[in-house]
């Protein structure tokens, strides 16, 4: 399975993920920056749009105000009789189509002393100009009490009224421009009346309502009191103020916004529009009337293009990353292919098939180098394995030969116990455990005549094959010379002289040689540098102190001395080599003669095999796992108890 946890997967993951992250960051930044730029653009655009609308509204209002001012100034400069006054009013309507009605309302008795109130008023109705007397139209609530009269009268300047519905004149939305006019008297300026001109706001609100910003954006107009004059929510027009809506929706931020508007402030804000969209709004006052014009841009639509662009970019990015991934997979697999083949080859080689075909390497890159090195390694391995096989084979041959040698050596030593079942006069037991496959220790026992048993123990210097060969020679010589000479000192002297001859390597062997008269227990013995044996009898356990003699093979002409002792019935003579006393434990402490003496005191005496095994286990216990450094050999001979022989 090439994709399982492979380098290809890692390549693809790392490169594609990194690309995706980088792309996502770029896209995100792009989107954010687009929004910021769009917002800046929007602010300037919305300001321009609002200003142009304000300008158009202002132009219309200014024209009406100018006509109204004109009538007022005309009335101030020259006296007008009724006919002239009416002509003036009427002509001003006829000449200014934006004026829907105009009139002059006089202060009580200001027109003439005969009439209390006088207020002629012309207005457009069904395409014609009609006339009305306002003092007669408002009998219940005479005109001096109306806002359009009162406010300019008190303030003494041009004033626009709050927009209102004129039910009498076709239910149209109007606003009235009122200008006071005066008469100069001796006591100063005296108010004569108020000139009024009505303007139909329908055209203005239509103009504003006709502004379409994108699909759902709009322009709105609010009066000085926050009354909604133009807005897509038709029901709210002249029915709701900004504040009543804020109240109804329990929205303090909307109320704050309303306050700012009626204070005549200008602003650009992000808010939720009255029709419920997240929007940007620019608002600014119409200076002459104190109304507020607002243009509202729905954010959703503004960002739509940015969103579309982002979506397109995302799709392009996705496709791009997909293509990149495919390319990465292709490249990675191209690189990996020889590696995969190499991996297969290593499996084969690991299984021992050194002749497996290695992939051919054409490239000079790292993979090519690896394949080449691999080739070299395979050859080295083959060579090594071949050498190892040969070495192992020869080592095994030596091992098996040594094994045979061990068997031969062991078979040279008497191993069948009891060796002389028809001789109840004595018992004998011995054991030899070599430290290496073959050892230098040996023991032997044989009858030299009917009643005399020769027994000996020996230790050849050094161990291993040289010692074993030397041991063979020594053992053979000792037996032949033993049977020929029958006296320990003579035996040792003779064998020594033979061994010392041509002894280039200075090999030597220590020997303790003794001859037992099995009828009496008399022992004649001679020592060639061997460890002193022990006697176990009724007086206890003690070391024998034989006269020292030089070991065999060291020096020709060495003289040995025969000594004597008598083994009483049930007494044992215990012979050993230094492999016993010099057995070491892991702390390098020797087993020693003291320990062996104590061990023999506690050892079973009746059965010689048990005695020797007991000492063996004591030595092993002392060694405590430390490797055996020398051959361990023991021989024990025991006279029978009284009466048995």
């Amino acid at each position, binding site marked *: 399975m090439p994709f399982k946890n492979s380098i290809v997967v890692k390549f693809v993951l790392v490169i594609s993920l990194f690309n995706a992250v980088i792309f996502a960051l770029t896209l995100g930044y792009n989107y954010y920056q687009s929004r910021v730029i769009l917002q800046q653009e929007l602010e300037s655009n919305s300001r321009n749009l609002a200003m142009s609308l304000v300008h158009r509204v202002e132009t219309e209002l200014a024209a009406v105000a100018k006509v109204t001012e004109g009538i007022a100034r005309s009335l101030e400069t020259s006296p007008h009789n009724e006919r002239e006054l009416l002509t003036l009013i009427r002509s001003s309507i006829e000449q200014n189509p934006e004026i829907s009605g105009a009139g002059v309302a006089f202060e009580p008795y200001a027109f003439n002393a005969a009439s209390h109130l006088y207020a002629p008023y012309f207005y457009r109705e069904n395409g014609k100009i009609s006339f009305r007397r306002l003092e007669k139209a408002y009998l219940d609530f005479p005109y001096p009490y109306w806002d359009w009269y009162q406010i300019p009268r008190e303030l003494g300047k041009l004033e626009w009224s709050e927009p209102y519905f004129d039910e009498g004149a076709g239910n149209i939305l109007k606003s009235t421009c009122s200008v006071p006019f005066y008469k100069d008297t001796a006591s100063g300026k005296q108010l004569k009346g108020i000139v009024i001109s009505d303007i139909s706001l329908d055209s203005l609100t239509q103009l504003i309502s006709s502004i379409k910003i994108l699909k759902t954006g709009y322009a709105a107009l609010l009066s000085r009191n926050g009354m909604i004059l133009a807005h897509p929510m038709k029901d709210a027009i002249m029915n709701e103020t900004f504040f009543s809506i804020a109240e109804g929706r329990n929205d303090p931020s909307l109320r704050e916004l309303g306050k700012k508007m009626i204070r005549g402030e200008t602003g650009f804000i992000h808010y939720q529009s009255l029709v419920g969209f997240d929007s940007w709004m620019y608002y600014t006052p119409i200076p002459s009337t104190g109304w507020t014009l607002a243009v509202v841009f729905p954010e959703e639509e503004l960002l739509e293009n940015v969103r579309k662009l982002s979506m397109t970019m995302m799709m392009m990015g996705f496709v791009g990353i997909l293509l990149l991934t495919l390319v990465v997979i292709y490249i990675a697999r191209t690189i990996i292919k020889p590696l995969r083949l190499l991996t297969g080859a290593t499996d084969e080689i690991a299984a021992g098939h050194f002749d497996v075909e290695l992939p051919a390497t054409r490239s000079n890159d790292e993979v090519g180098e690896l394949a080449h090195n691999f080739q070299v390694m395979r050859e080295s391995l083959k060579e090594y394995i071949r050498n190892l096989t040969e070495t192992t084979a020869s080592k095994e041959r030596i091992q098996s030969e040594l094994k045979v040698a061990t068997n031969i050596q062991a078979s040279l030593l008497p191993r069948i116990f009891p060796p002389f079942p028809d001789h109840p006069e004595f018992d004998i037991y011995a054991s030899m455990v070599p430290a290496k496959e073959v050892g230098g220790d040996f023991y032997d026992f044989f009858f030299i005549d009917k009643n005399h048993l020769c027994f000996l123990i020996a230790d050849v210097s*050094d*161990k291993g094959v040289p010692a074993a060969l030397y041991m063979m020679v020594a053992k053979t010589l000792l037996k032949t010379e033993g049977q020929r000479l029958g006296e320990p000192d003579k035996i040792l002297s003779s064998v020594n002289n033979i061994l010392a001859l041509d002894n280039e390597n*200075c*090999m030597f062997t220590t020997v303790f040689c003794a001859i037992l008269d099995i009828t009496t227990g008399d022992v004649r013995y001679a020592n*060639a*540098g061997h460890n002193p044996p022990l006697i176990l009898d009724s007086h206890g356990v003690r070391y024998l102190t034989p006269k020292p003699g*030089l070991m065999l093979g060291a*020096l020709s002409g060495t003289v040995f001395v025969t000594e004597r002792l008598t083994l009483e019935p049930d007494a044992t003579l215990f012979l050993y080599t230094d492999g016993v006393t*010099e057995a070491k434990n892991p702390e390098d402490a020797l087993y020693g003669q003291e320990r062996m003496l104590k061990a023999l005191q506690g050892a079973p005496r009746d059965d010689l095999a048990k005695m020797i095994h007991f000492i063996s286990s004591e030595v092993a216990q002392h060694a405590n796992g430390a490797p055996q450094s020398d051959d361990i050999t023991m021989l024990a001979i025991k006279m029978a108890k009284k009466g048995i022989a």
Partner: protein
Amino acid sequence: MNLQTRIENNVTVLTVSGRLDTVTAPEYEKNIREMISGGNIKFVVDFEQLEYISSAGLRGLLVMAKLLNEKSGRMCLANVKGNVRSVFDMCGFTSVFTMKDSVSEALAVFV
């Protein structure tokens, strides 16, 4: 085993310390052979610091004696005591080698 050599009055004084056994005896023998073939034929071997001697060590001494014999050289052992002394006693080496109780006494043998 550690082997130190110094020359006093034309006599090579060898100080052997540690163990002289199967493991170290070949090295001892090699050093001795080199020294003897290099012309040193008078030796004092100081066993003051020798802790242990095995049969392989004894063989090393025999080889040394034999080589010196061929070249009419001589050797004398000094400070053979303790364990080493009992091994010497046991295997009859005491009668084969000249032994003195100190290096200066051993050196006096060659005067």
